[in-house]
């Protein structure tokens, strides 16, 4: 399942809903991305996430489907927020569940790496020096490239 939403999410409630009745699940891995209050040496006040309605949901669904092809997952969820966010706010949630932990760990890492390089979201940071669009990091491309094997 994937969701793109302006509102916050409750990690505990999401795990409960995702795993309810699936008693063959042996391990659940979650990753939560938060808004930091710094970028390099600069302080960040607010962050605004722009997305491409339609394509964003499609890409997240594609990435999730790819994870389910590669690993034997019993359940998975990606929730990504958009709109204005403050430091400390949740941005993204990835949950993977499997009979065994290794598949859940690997799939969660894969999902986060891939959504950073393939999901159409753009971050704009507002700080004391004004606003700026966040630039894509080479390190993110390298992290995603590890999975091309």
């Amino acid at each position, binding site marked *: 399942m994937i969701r793109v939403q302006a509102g916050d999410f409750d990690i505990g409630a999401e795990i409960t809903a995702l795993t309810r009745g699936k008693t063959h699940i042996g391990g659940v891995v979650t990753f939560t991305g938060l808004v930091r209050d710094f970028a390099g040496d600069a302080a960040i006040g607010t962050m605004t996430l722009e997305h*491409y309605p339609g*394509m964003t949901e499609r890409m997240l669904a594609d990435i999730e489907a790819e994870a389910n092809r590669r690993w034997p997952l019993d359940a998975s969820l990606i929730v990504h927020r958009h709109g204005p966010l403050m430091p400390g706010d949740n*941005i993204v949630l990835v949950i993977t569940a499997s009979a065994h932990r290794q598949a859940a760990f690997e799939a969660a890492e894969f999902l986060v790496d891939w959504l950073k390089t393939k999901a159409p*979201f*753009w971050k704009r940071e507002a700080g004391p020096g004004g606003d700026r669009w966040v*630039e894509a990091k080479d390190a993110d491309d390298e992290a995603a490239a590890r999975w091309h094997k």
Partner: protein
Amino acid sequence: MKVLYFAWLRERVGTGEEEVAPPADVTTVAALIDWLSSRSAGHARAFEQRDVIRAAVNQDFADPETPVKPGDEVAFFPPVTGG
């Protein structure tokens, strides 16, 4: 043809979405960028750093050589920074 702009491309062009009717010889993403660049100073500024611009045709990532035709939805944006 519907053209969408995101992030700083949207700011430079001055709109997030426009309906355009390029001439018949505009059949690829690269040719569309050339044609759009001539529409205004804002368009020209949006497309000046071609190597950092990404495109999608009908919501699939596209290359400069990807074909475009009337009725398509073509989007231009910088490298993504979600997650």
